């Protein structure tokens, strides 16, 4: 379950996060919803900021290189047509096709990896807070039980939340 408190500005939201931590809420359960990216630590500290995006790009690139090579050189081999005593697989053109496919798949891999890492697309089980895109700041807390949800709701309201939204079924 998720509780999202909507705050007017960055300062009150920041204080609310401090209050939550003081009330023994795990910091990894807290995240911020903002219309603008703030540098790490302005609102919350993410526990695990490692990203594997470059590996997705690299993996895509390798897969693309193999595909491009397989397509250009492989098909020339499978369906040989002898033209004017030129070699069946000519390296320069194969290199160009390989390059294009490498880049294409690297880009596809990056986008694919991005959505995986973001956990998107996600429509269900998430509290949507339209106020956020209008400049408000949301503080989202994940909680396990209904009791806890009530407690956090109180905490957020006390910290100055103008509104609290709850929802979601997953922890």
């Amino acid at each position: 379950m998720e509780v999202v408190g909507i705050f007017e500005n960055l300062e009150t939201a920041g204080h609310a996060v401090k209050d939550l931590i003081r009330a023994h809420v795990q910091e990894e359960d807290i995240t911020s919803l903002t219309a603008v990216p703030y540098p790490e630590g302005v609102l919350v500290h993410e526990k695990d900021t490692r990203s594997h995006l470059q590996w997705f790009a690299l993996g895509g690139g390798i897969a693309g290189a193999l595909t491009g090579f397989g397509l250009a050189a492989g098909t020339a081999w499978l369906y040989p047509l002898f033209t004017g005593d030129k070699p069946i697989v000519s390296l320069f053109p194969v290199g160009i096709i390989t390059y294009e496919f490498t880049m294409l798949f690297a880009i596809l891999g990056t986008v694919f990896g991005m959505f995986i890492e973001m956990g998107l697309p996600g429509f269900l089980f998430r509290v949507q807070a339209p106020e956020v895109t209008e400049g408000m700041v949301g503080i989202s807390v994940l909680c396990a039980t209904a009791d806890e949800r009530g407690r956090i709701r109180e905490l957020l309201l006390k910290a100055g939340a103008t509104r609290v939204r709850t929802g979601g079924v997953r922890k």
Partner: protein
Amino acid sequence: MKNTRVVIFLAFVLLATAVTLLVFYNLGYIFYFPASSDDRSPAQPIAFSHRLHAGERGIHCEYCHRSARISSTAGVPDVALCRSCHMYIAADRPVIKDLSRYWIEGRPIPWVRVHRLPDFAFFPHRMHLNAGVYCDQCHGNVAAMDRVERVSGLNMGWCLDCHRRKSASIDCWTCHR
């Protein structure tokens, strides 16, 4: 731990490659179009039975399709050839009377073509016959068909398959010019 990750990474990469190549290599089967959508066994103006003539009576293909060995086209027999036998044989049957009418009126029989290659594909019957590729290899067992049916795909891949198998020329200008 580190090794497992590398293995998973490489497996993923190879899987992606394999899937893409498979999709590319199989697009042709996903969007498969037959070479010809014409009726495989069209009705003919006269119910001529190959089973009866070539099968039961054992008349050789080249008796009627006379130019097959010497020309590009196998040739469809003219009405005179039909009549040369049927003046006497079964002349009183209704089908033969139909045939005779074409003779009397001096019209050719409008046979419906079953095996049609596009105009840009040239198939010399004589080269195939003389190379030992007999009628049935492409036309099927016509001697068992009442009405002739097209059994072969007649698309380019089908031609090429056979040419590769028999190390015949696969030069484009062999068939296209």
